[in-house]
């Protein structure tokens, strides 16, 4: 008996969601706002407006692995990341801030935002420990949900971006 390959199974496996089908910008913004109020301060708000391009950028991110795989990346200027660290540490902030303090605090913000983004996605996923440095580049422009916000007048962007390249068109 001859079995014909209709491509049906292959096509089924080839379907994978892009992030814009799973979460919208408003949800990401709400998650970020909640994180800011709880971690950075009750009076601290993120204004949903695009700001100036970031100079000397620093990113913090966590990876999500599951039905959708990618990263939740926060990017702002290094100076702003330091300011965020001071706000987070409040009265515990050291006089001289070390890079390690910024890595720790900025990474924790990514952890909280990323954890809540992961929870908003369907299915069960794993979450990595946070990383801080140069952001991973998005691999598929269609698989990105990005919000640009202002904190104390400085640009903070949050990008929920897929780690997989776009599927080849059949």
């Amino acid at each position, binding site marked *: 008996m001859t079995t014909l390959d209709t491509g049906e199974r292959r096509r089924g496996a080839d379907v994978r969601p892009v992030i814009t089908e799973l979460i919208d910008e408003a949800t990401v913004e709400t998650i970020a706002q909640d*994180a800011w109020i709880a971690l950075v301060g009750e009076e601290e708000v993120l204004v949903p407006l695009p700001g100036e391009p970031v100079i000397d950028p620093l990113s913090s991110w966590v990876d999500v692995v599951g039905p959708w795989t990618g990263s939740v990346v926060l990017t702002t200027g290094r100076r702003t990341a330091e300011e965020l660290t001071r706000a987070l*540490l409040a009265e*515990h902030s050291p006089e001289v801030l070390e890079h390690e303090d910024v890595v*720790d605090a900025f990474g924790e913000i990514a952890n*909280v935002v990323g*954890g809540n983004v992961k*929870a908003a996605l369907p299915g069960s996923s794993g979450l990595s*420990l946070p990383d801080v440095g140069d952001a991973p580049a998005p691999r598929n422009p269609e698989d990105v949900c990005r919000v640009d916000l202002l904190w104390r007048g400085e640009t903070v962007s949050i990008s929920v971006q897929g780690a997989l390249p776009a599927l080849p068109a059949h």
Partner: protein
Amino acid sequence: MMRALVIDDSRAMRRIVSGILEGLGYETQQAGHGREGLDVLGGLERDQLPELVCVDWNMPVMDGLQFVSAVRSNPAWRSMTIMMVTSESEHTQIVRALAAGAHEYVIKPFTADAIRDKLALLGLLPQEAVL
């Protein structure tokens, strides 16, 4: 004075949680991951054990779930109340933590009031914080 052990790989988060607990009247100790938390507990006499352990989920070396399981396997440590402090807000993860022996959980981001409310539920609000 009531005692608490705060376990989180983020120094900033340890400071925040410890600050909230100290504000409520707790004396706190800190550890950077589950293994370090077990070491702290292992160095304490039974009457010095904390009433409360606040532990993060996602940590290097030993995560919160492994820590909870390790604590619950030691009969000498059964008196301690464990609260997971985590960004893992998926229901299945929370159920896993509770099944392993955690008593309560609070999801990051949280407010000081959320911690206070959970402690009140657990009957672990120091007297000075009740008044």
